[in-house]
């Protein structure tokens, strides 16, 4: 299982990469492996303001549907439209082409998220 050290993480298995004041959000390698083949993604509306911890997207595999939570508060700037045709990108490249959405955030809010080592401990205890 891969836990890139430059990312921040949530207990609910999202990862966040900060690019200036924009946060790119996806689900972790651990999460995609647990879900299995992803076949459908419900993405949030661009422009929507979201609270930290609110359910903003849904990733569905053959076996189950899973809510995706906003790691921090912010505004949805962009969604990964490639996923509507190729949801399997989430399995193939969870930290790359399988990203879910981008948010405008206050970078300081990311300090409350988990480091790679902290997240790895959470994931491996499950």
């Amino acid at each position, binding site marked *: 299982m891969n836990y890139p050290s430059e990312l921040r993480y949530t207990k609910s298995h999202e990862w966040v990469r900060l690019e200036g004041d924009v946060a790119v959000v996806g689900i972790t390698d651990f999460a995609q492996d647990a879900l299995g083949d992803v076949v459908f993604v*419900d993405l949030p509306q661009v422009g929507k303001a979201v609270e930290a911890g609110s359910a903003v997207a849904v990733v569905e595999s*053959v*076996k189950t549907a899973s809510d995706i939570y906003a790691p921090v508060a912010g505004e949805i700037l962009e969604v990964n439209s490639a996923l509507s045709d190729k949801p399997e990108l989430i399995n193939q490249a969870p930290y790359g082409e399988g990203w879910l959405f981008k948010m405008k955030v206050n970078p300081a809010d990311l300090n409350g998220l988990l480091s790679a080592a902290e997240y790895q401990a959470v994931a491996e205890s499950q």
Partner: protein
Amino acid sequence: MVPFAGYEMPIQYTSITSEHLAVRGLVGMFDVSHMGEFWIKGPGALEFLQYATLNDVAKLKVGRAQYSMLPNAQGGVVDDIYLYRTGEEEYLMVVNAANIEKDWGHLQRLAEGFEVRLEDASDFFALIAVQGPHAVAVLQKLTDTDLVSRKKNDTFMGKLAGKWARFARTGYTGEDGYEVFVAPDEAPAVWAALLDAGVTPCGLGARDTLRLEAGFPLYGHELTDTTNPLCTPFDWVVKGQKEFYGKQALLHPACERRLVGLLVEGGIPREGYRVLGGGKEVGVLTSGTHSPVLKKGIGLAYVQPEWAGVGTALEVEIRGRAAPATVVETPFVKR
């Protein structure tokens, strides 16, 4: 691994989609040893089974099998089963694992007064289903018994990878193939021989997506103690010209809802989701998934009869949103 009817079973070995596509394109195998097996033996076996099941057992010759159901007294279904005639006065009934105790008690009660002996042989059989367009060719390499020229629903004894086995040309995937009953202590060797022959092991996940594409019911979902089979596409099982337990309650139902297949766009239908017609609730999903072959949502739903015609436009409520759905013929995927 997940607990399933008292057994620990894998949802998937690698991925549900790849296992599913292996069965549709080549060959896969399922360890379905959890299924229950009852012997029904004796001079009254035929008469008893005619009474206890819905299909016409008189038509079942030695060496043949049929799909059937056990009716209850209220017009519902105790279980759906497969019945194999293994001798003149000897039948093997395969039942759902979750229903073994219920079925056993039910059959014991009904058997009173019949010249029949029931034996619960569930612990004496392992069952491996080998399914897919290449299933018969792969199995044939592991046995001297002719498998190729047999017909669907034939059943016979033979040796598979050197172990005695009961073969049945049956399955739950909509593909050609065999289900093979072997002794539990010999099952690992048979499984290993099939693995060596290149058969893909498949878990419960693919078993469910395959049976749904094939339009087959799963007990506890499409069929229950309170569903009348005449309100489903499996009404052909009911042979109303014979006498059977609960016949009066079962025949001529009002069918407030009928079971239909739904093709769903823009989302994956799941069990329990509401079906809307003209904006109002007209039914509910009993099973739903993503079809790996059609790459669309498919489901089985009970809907009000006026919304049950093939081609009817409906909607499925998915997380508060209405996804377009169409009533279609089952199976969703034809061989």
